[in-house]
């Protein structure tokens, strides 16, 4: 069969009535899970997975994939409206998205993330359709040393997020790195910083820290402001949709974010988080008014949201062509494939063409469905902001707590979340940025492990770290990112110094 026949066949599977219905159901449930604070795609899919047992495999996978990108769509909503990302890849969206909401542009932030999502989602499915297999081959070039280089690059990007005070930003980042060392150390098998506590052996999950540092801290601060009478009802200014000016500023970040997201997504390991950080730091570094980032810049929402959703399609490449999950969510999706007796991998395209092409076909439709579904919802979601604060705050807290509890059914996780909430409150009061802590926590563990994996492979010879062009490229970019601003500042100072005596 020619490729075009496969694609057409896939569409005919995807357009079957029951498949359309379950794709829609998946999208709706995914959106629901995504917009509930404290529930991200991974937690949501783990919850919903048992619902699909007993369905026909293709239908079940179409529904699960619908949930996956539905939750990715919805995940930005809580970041923007109540500053509570449901998963690591929405952390970057929260930074400027929440500020946009505070400036009265919640509608525009939600709209631009929906537009970015549909463009990025559709592009990545097209790329997946055309180049899945060769791209998967390329992904194999990334071993531990290459992963380490990318992660060093990401940490360099994190350290540029420090805000006003460099020292406080670094403080946040190092604490995040420290939190990532809690648990069983993969390479030596030894428990670290667990104090003999069994539940800590698996480390601290992202949601526990994110709900604590973002949701609970936000609620505590808002309770104060509310009681003091500084009502924080975020009035919507201007129209719900994007202004022409906002659209003009958004489309290039969306295009760049889409490309970054897809190509990072193709590389096994790391997840979508890195791509959102890369997109954000790229937008920031090429923007004329860098210092305005963090105060509600639409570029800081458009780029990461595109990257985030393009990564979904990117993740499908190693998942389908190699059977390799790129992150927690795709790991659950892989589990679902296996439960249905389908082994993703090199033979999937020849052995179960109906399933793969049906799934890919459904992704085109699902993306459009979500877009159409989400547009009217924007008006509904911004209504959330009109809920009286005294009612809204307790509800946010309860829903986020359910999310935390349902990760591991653990009461201890709730107490940890509380501790992080208190710490997050202190961070806010002391003006310490929270994003570096959360991102360092998510990426730090992988950075250490890939470094040590490389060292084991090379027998302790550090040359392995720069033994391939990919690794060299990312290490060089990291150096540029850290040293670039310093060098620029030095040059500028010298120029000023040279200019002064002449005057």
């Amino acid at each position, binding site marked *: 069969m020619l490729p075009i026949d496969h694609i057409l066949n896939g569409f005919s599977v995807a357009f079957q009535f029951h498949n359309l219905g379950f794709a829609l159901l998946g999208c709706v449930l995914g959106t629901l899970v995504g917009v509930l604070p404290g529930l991200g795609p991974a937690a949501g899919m783990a919850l919903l997975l048992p619902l699909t047992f007993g369905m026909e495999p293709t239908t079940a996978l179409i529904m699960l994939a619908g949930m996956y990108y539905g939750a990715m769509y919805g995940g930005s909503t809580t970041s923007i409206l109540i500053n509570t990302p449901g998963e690591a890849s929405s952390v970057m969206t929260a930074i400027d998205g929440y500020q946009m909401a505070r400036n009265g542009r919640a509608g525009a932030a939600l709209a631009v993330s929906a537009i970015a999502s549909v463009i990025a989602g559709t592009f990545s499915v097209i790329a997946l359709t055309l180049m899945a297999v060769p791209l998967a081959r390329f992904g194999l070039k990334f071993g531990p040393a290459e992963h380490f280089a990318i992660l060093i690059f990401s940490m360099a990007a994190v350290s540029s997020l420090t805000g006003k005070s*460099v020292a*406080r930003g670094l403080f946040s980042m190092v604490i995040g790195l420290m939190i990532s060392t809690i648990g069983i150390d993969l390479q030596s098998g030894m428990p*670290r910083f667990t*104090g003999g506590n069994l539940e800590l052996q698996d480390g601290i999950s992202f949601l526990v820290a994110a709900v604590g540092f973002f949701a609970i801290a936000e609620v505590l601060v808002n309770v104060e402001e509310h009681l003091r009478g500084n009502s924080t009802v975020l009035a919507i200014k201007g129209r719900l949709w994007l202004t022409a000016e906002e659209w003009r500023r958004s489309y290039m970040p969306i295009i760049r974010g889409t490309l970054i997201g897809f190509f990072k997504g193709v590389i096994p390991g790391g997840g979508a988080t890195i791509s959102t950080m890369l997109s954000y730091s790229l937008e920031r570094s090429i923007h004329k008014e860098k210092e305005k980032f963090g105060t509600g810049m639409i570029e800081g929402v458009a780029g990461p949201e595109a990257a985030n959703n393009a990564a979904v399609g990117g993740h499908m490449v190693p998942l389908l062509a190699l059977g390799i999950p790129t992150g927690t969510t795709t790991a659950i999706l892989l589990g679902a494939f296996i439960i249905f007796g389908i082994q993703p991998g090199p033979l999937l395209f020849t052995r179960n063409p109906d399933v793969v092409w049906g799934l890919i076909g459904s992704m085109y439709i699902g993306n459009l469905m979500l877009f159409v579904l989400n547009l009217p919802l924007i008006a509904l979601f911004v209504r959330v902001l009109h809920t009286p604060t005294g*009612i809204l*705050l307790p509800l946010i*807290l309860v829903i986020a707590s359910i999310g935390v509890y349902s990760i591991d059914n653990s009461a201890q996780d709730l107490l940890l*979340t*509380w501790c992080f909430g208190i710490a997050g409150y202190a961070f806010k009061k002391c003006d310490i940025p929270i994003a570096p802590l959360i991102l360092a926590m998510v990426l730090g563990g992988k950075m250490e492990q890939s470094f*040590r994996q490389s060292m084991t492979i090379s027998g302790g010879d550090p040359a392995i770290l720069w033994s391939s062009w990919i690794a060299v490229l990312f290490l060089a970019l990291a150096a540029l990112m850290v040293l670039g601003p310093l060098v620029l500042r030095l040059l500028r100072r010298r120029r000023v110094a040279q200019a002064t005596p002449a005057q």
Partner: protein
Amino acid sequence: MVNVILALVALGIAALYGLGIAAIPQMMFGDVLGPTAYPRLLMILLIGVAGLLLVEGMREKSWAPARANLRAFLREDALTFVLAAGAVLAFFLLFRPLGYLLSTLLFLLVSMLVLYRGPRWIPVAVTLGFCGASYLIFVHAFGTQLPRGLLPF
């Protein structure tokens, strides 16, 4: 002032972390670097950050505004914070023993009645509606294993 206090906090955390490093069991297993090399590096980094914070703290011209902020916080917000944080803690501690439905009912009712300054029936209605709906959605639609606690369902 904040920076100096943060520097002290950072040093405190670094010390605690150091104690944690000493408690990591060492075996001949595993890789060349072993489980403690990276944590040691992080500890040194944090001490370095404490130094940076001190430097930034010393550069501040006057501590007066920070002190005024602290005083304002103690006067206006400290009690609210303690009560709100205490309420959340109580909710979390009772989550298992009382069960999801009872603890949530209690927490929502109390906190909304305190925070919401409108007609009293609204918090009551929202609480009852939310508890019922969320229980149905999470337990029956999503199959979440929420604690039952004292109730039989």
